[in-house]
């Protein structure tokens, strides 16, 4: 079993008729994801790739059992759409949307917490469990089934690391993007905990970056709770202070937010440190996974 999703996970696509939504629906469906329905207000009654579309989530869930949802809704409607998923108590929401205002993210996560819903993201590529299921936008040809979990802030970095691992014959159990921040639903720490419990995962790659202090919680969790080996790569070592490196959260505002400082904390916590993506397969080989 992969973490969070498996082949049987029944998926609802929010924003299914949009540019990204319709394309990714096609890709996920081809990969084997069990997509049961989609929602776009005003487009109820249509079909996308044979998937029935509803105006409202409540209509969709009255017709279909749904275990997880993935949202491709634009930022200005993302809060409403997310609250709609949460109101129907769909237990897992993947929020791919980039650029949702902080206040809206706070409200979404607050309500999700109250209702006991897991939110991955926002600004996340979602997740893939190679060979099993995909609830996200990962380019699946770069991944292969295996025993190493990946958790990443950045989508593109997880693709790159998946690619170099796959090229060296090292497969992945699940690859999870937590999102670009600065505010997250599921944390690195929460995903690490899932990997620690997952019998298919033998080692975990943690991909972090400059900015924020999330990686310190991860380091603390690794030190206290992880028995499985962790390989960590923190990018942005060469980032200048005060510049925002793409992600809203990737901006060095204090000494502890630098890559060097985070790398040191992770090293102390027992993680193996990779300088770049290339070194990761070697480190995995070295620990015999």
């Amino acid at each position, binding site marked *: 079993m992969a973490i969070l999703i498996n082949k049987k996970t029944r998926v609802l696509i929010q924003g299914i008729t949009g540019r*990204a939504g319709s*394309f990714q629906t096609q*890709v996920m469906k081809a990969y084997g994801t069990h997509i049961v329905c989609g929602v776009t207000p005003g487009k109820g009654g249509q079909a996308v790739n044979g998937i029935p579309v509803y105006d409202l989530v409540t209509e969709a869930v009255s017709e279909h059992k749904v275990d997880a949802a993935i949202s491709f809704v634009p*930022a*200005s409607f993302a809060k409403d759409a997310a609250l709609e998923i949460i109101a129907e108590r769909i237990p897992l929401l993947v929020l*791919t949307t*980039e650029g949702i*205002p*902080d*206040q809206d*993210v*706070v*409200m979404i996560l*607050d309500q999700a917490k109250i209702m006991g819903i897991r939110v991955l993201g926002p*600004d996340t*590529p979602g997740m893939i469990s190679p060979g099993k299921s995909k609830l*996200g*936008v*990962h*380019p699946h*040809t*770069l991944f292969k089934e295996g025993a190493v979990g990946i958790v*990443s*802030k*950045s*989508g*593109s*970095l*997880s*693709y*790159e690391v998946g*690619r*170099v691992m796959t090229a060296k014959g090292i497969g992945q159990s699940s690859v999870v993007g937590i999102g*670009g921040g*600065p*505010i*997250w639903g599921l944390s690195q720490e929460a995903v690490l905990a899932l990997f620690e419990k997952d019998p298919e995962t033998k080692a975990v790659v943690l991909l972090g*970056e*400059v900015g*924020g202090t*999330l990686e310190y*919680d991860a380091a603390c969790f690794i030190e206290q709770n992880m028995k499985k080996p962790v390989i960590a790569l923190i*990018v*942005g*070592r*060469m*980032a*200048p202070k005060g*510049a*925002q*490196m*793409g*992600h*809203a959260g*990737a901006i060095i505002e*204090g000494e502890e937010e630098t890559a060097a400082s985070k790398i040191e904390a992770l090293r102390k916590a027992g993680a193996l440190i990779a*300088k*770049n*993506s*290339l070194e990761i397969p070697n480190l995995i080989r070295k620990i015999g996974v």
Partner: protein
Amino acid sequence: MRLLEYQGKQLMANRGIVIPSGSMITSLQDLDGLEYPLFLKAQVPVGKRGKAGAIRTVSDVSEAVVVAEELFRITVGGYPVCALLAEEPVGIQQELYLAVLIDKKINRPLVMASQAGGMDIEAVAKKSPEKFFKQYFGLHTGIQDFQLRYLAKSLDLEKPAPFFNLVKQLITLAREVDATLLEINPLAITSKGLVALDAKVILDDKAAYRQRELFQQIMEEQQRIDKREKSEAAQMAEAANIQYIPLDGDIGIIADGAGTGMLTLDMVIDAGGRAANFCEMGGQANAEYMEKAMAAILANPQVKALVVSLIGGLTRMDEMAEGIVNYIKKTTESVPMVVRMCGTKADVGISLLEKAGIKTFADLNQAIQEIIAKSREVSNGNSD
């Protein structure tokens, strides 16, 4: 977006928060007819202006002219001083610190207050975190009276009512303008009540779509005052809404993701290259966006070679290739360039690029090695 002090204060004053009376000085003539003594405060969007000598007291107009002339000549944190806020002094009994912000670790808004107002607040926060009193609140529910009572007691306030009112005003303001930080430091207790002596306001850029008028007004004002020289590349990137951070090397970088963008930067420098910039397009870039990124990065005359680092998830490689090819078709000048391309629709993209004679790599390291070699060739060629 960080507001200038006077902009932040104006935003607060509009909601009934008391600020010292003041006026904007953009030329020496503006110093006539004011009541002295007063403060002259450089309007630059950076902290620690006091330490940088950018906040000064003047006792009459002749001193003001001397000081203003001096300030107009200096640069603070990279910003030439082009505007001053002239402010009346206020009879201060005590200085507090007060801020409303979002704690990103636990996704909750909070009020932070301290008696250590007016100090180098980051240093105090690091050394004596116990001097800061925090109360978390719900964005919808706002702060409760018992929380205000806690803060008032912690700050040992004699008259809590105006403080309660101020905190509520700040919370409402933060909500209404999508502020991620509203900081008043120092907040002065005076005989006439509470006065915001400084204001640090950061608005959430992601909320620009629903705060259009406010953002536009603030940006126009800032652009009018901001006399920093901006490169053509920076201007083009800004116009196209592209993340662009200029660096001082000669290898241009374009990436389609923040993570691989930073990895590319790290690896270029690790390999002995010198990066000319950081540029990242975000997950939903299309052909037009790619073309504009090419144009902006290559507008920097320092760029002698270009590495385009693409690995598509949401971004489609066919569209990226189209953008690159479109740019190349339209331009005559060129620098050596490599493209690393893989991921979504990479097969289509690679064949498009190859048809246009552009070399592609699947491996990022190979692409970087190649472009560093090429940049050296160019440098050597130039120095020959």
